[in-house]
């Protein structure tokens, strides 16, 4: 794991009207790591994700992406940054009027000039990489199950071979078997492609299974960051509750007895 931050956030402030979501929030994302973001409902995990992606304008603070401050980015810089990241939204957010294969090709068509034959081959490889059968390629998103839509969304996020992928609750809404399989997939892809992964999650099993580092959002900022073992020793009441509660203990037990293949 390299120790250069590819995204660094300093003094971020987000507010909607009088309601302050983030205040003086600092966070670094290092190259090659899997960073899990946890926090209670309403602590602004998704808002943080959207702010990094530029879908939400922050009230104050500095966000550096690939060494460039977002506020100083020209539209061309932003366009270049978009080619270097991939995003998986909660329910895939696939374009419903395009087939899965065409969804994957959207970014390829927008950013590059490749022959259609090569784009079809690339789409087929991405579909294979995320573990979907080839029959999924010509299907429309409405014909897929929730788990398959997530895989297809991940394939679309990987279309340009990004350096970093943002995952918004990747395992939410999946059954436990599907969720572990998805964890496994992210872990494998991360190892194979050398990805940096920024993952908003509620799934304690995911945190144990694949996250190198965890950042806890509470009290409008990133309260602590650290490995899962470091989380276990934290004294903050919410963190204690989160990691030592019944679900936390169950996930830890599952981790110590290696049931996952």
């Amino acid at each position, binding site marked *: 794991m390299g120790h250069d931050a590819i995204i660094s956030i300093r003094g971020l402030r987000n507010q909607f009207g009088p309601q302050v979501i983030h205040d003086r929030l600092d966070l670094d994302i290092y190259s090659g790591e899997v960073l899990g973001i946890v926090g209670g409902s309403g602590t602004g995990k998704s808002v943080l994700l959207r702010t990094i992606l530029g879908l939400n304008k922050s009230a104050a603070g500095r966000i550096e992406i690939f060494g460039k401050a977002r506020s100083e980015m020209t539209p061309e810089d932003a366009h270049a940054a978009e080619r270097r990241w991939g995003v998986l939204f909660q329910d895939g957010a696939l374009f*419903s*009027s395009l*087939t899965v*294969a*065409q969804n994957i*090709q959207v970014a*390829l068509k927008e950013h*590059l*000039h*490749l*022959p259609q034959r*090569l*784009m*079809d*081959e*690339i*789409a*087929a*490889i*991405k*579909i*294979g*990489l995320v573990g979907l*059968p*080839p029959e999924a*390629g*010509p299907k*429309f*998103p*409405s014909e897929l199950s929730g788990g398959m839509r997530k895989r297809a969304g991940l394939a679309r996020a*990987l279309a*340009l*071979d990004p350096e970093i992928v943002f995952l918004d609750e990747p395992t939410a809404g999946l059954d436990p078997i599907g969720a572990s399989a998805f964890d496994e997939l992210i872990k*494998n892809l991360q*190892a*194979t*492609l*050398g990805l940096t992964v920024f993952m908003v999650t509620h799934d304690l099993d995911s945190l144990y299974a694949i996250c190198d580092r965890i950042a806890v959002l509470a009290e409008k900022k990133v309260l602590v960051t650290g490995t899962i073992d470091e989380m276990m020793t934290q004294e903050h009441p919410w963190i204690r509750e989160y990691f030592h509660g019944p679900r936390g203990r169950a996930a830890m037990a599952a981790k110590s007895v290696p049931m996952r293949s």
Partner: protein
Amino acid sequence: MAGAAQSEAWLDVSEDASSLMLRPQGDWIVRHADAVDKALQAIDPYGRRAATFDLSHIRKLDTTGAWLIHRTSTALQRGGAVVTVAGASSPQATLLHAVAKADQPMHATRPYGNPFVNVVVRMGAALEEAGHTLRDLVAFLGLILETLGKTLVNPRRMRATSTVYHMEQAGLNAVPIVSLISFLIGAVLAFQGSEQLKRFGGEIFTVNLVAVSFLREIGILMTAIMVAGRSGSAFTAQIGSMKLREEIDAMRTLGLDPMEVLVLPRVIALIVMVPILGFIGAMMGLLGGGLVVWMELGMSPQMYLVRLNEAVDVWDAGVAFIKAPVFGLLIAMIGCFEGMKVEGSAESVGQRTTASVVEGIFIVIVVDALFSIMFVKLGI
């Protein structure tokens, strides 16, 4: 055959009698895939005994680059060569392995088949669909009447707030646009009519033309078309998006009847409001016609009213008032029916909304024609 040096990815190819040496250079990533793809396509995969990919000079490799290497080696193997991949770093080897595992033939879209057969198939499917729609519409009308009957027996079941809300949305808020359009059409009709009637000195009958056509037909027809476009579509979109978010299912599990909660208030609102809007439309049309008659023919407003009185009898307006509630019922019915048929994706909401407007206007005009025949036969 060295690749173009200015691109950031290229391929060095050297070969002796029987073996081929391929040395990828630079960044073999998706951004440079086009150049690399062309270079690799130029290699003839047949008739070689051995080929080697030497990856030791490659700077960057991503899944697309790995796929291109994999594709070429499989093609060479199929052509009869023994392919070795040398000099790959451990992450590169992992990537190549993963891509090899993910290799699967795939279609990006469904095969289209024979276009002539497709046209026939689509026509048949459309016809069948139209038949089903007609059948379901009749069933839906029955459901509405049943719910209406139940509500009449037990008026406390009626959703008064919702009904009044839709009366405001579909009725009151439509007054300005219905008025404006009717006024303009009345003016245009009087203007064009008087031009034609002048030719045989019958311009005085412009009043009859405007009065009878507006009171009998145009006033209510324009209103109905406007309501179909404005409110029928809104009903479809509202109910359709509720259907998508499973709100309708939630309602059913809570023991609420969507027919009673969603459909009936909208139906009642339009049954009540379309006649009122139609009346306003007719009046505005007469106003527009009167203004033109005054300006063009110099007929004073008093004279216009006298002529109007002579030109129309009470049945001219009565006919419109018989038709209007039926139009209201049909528009609301189709709007709600199409909303209930939404399923799957947001795209479906759009399709259904379009269908709702088209069907709404279509059925209003068809029923208007039937009414015309009926009134002629009845002699009113």
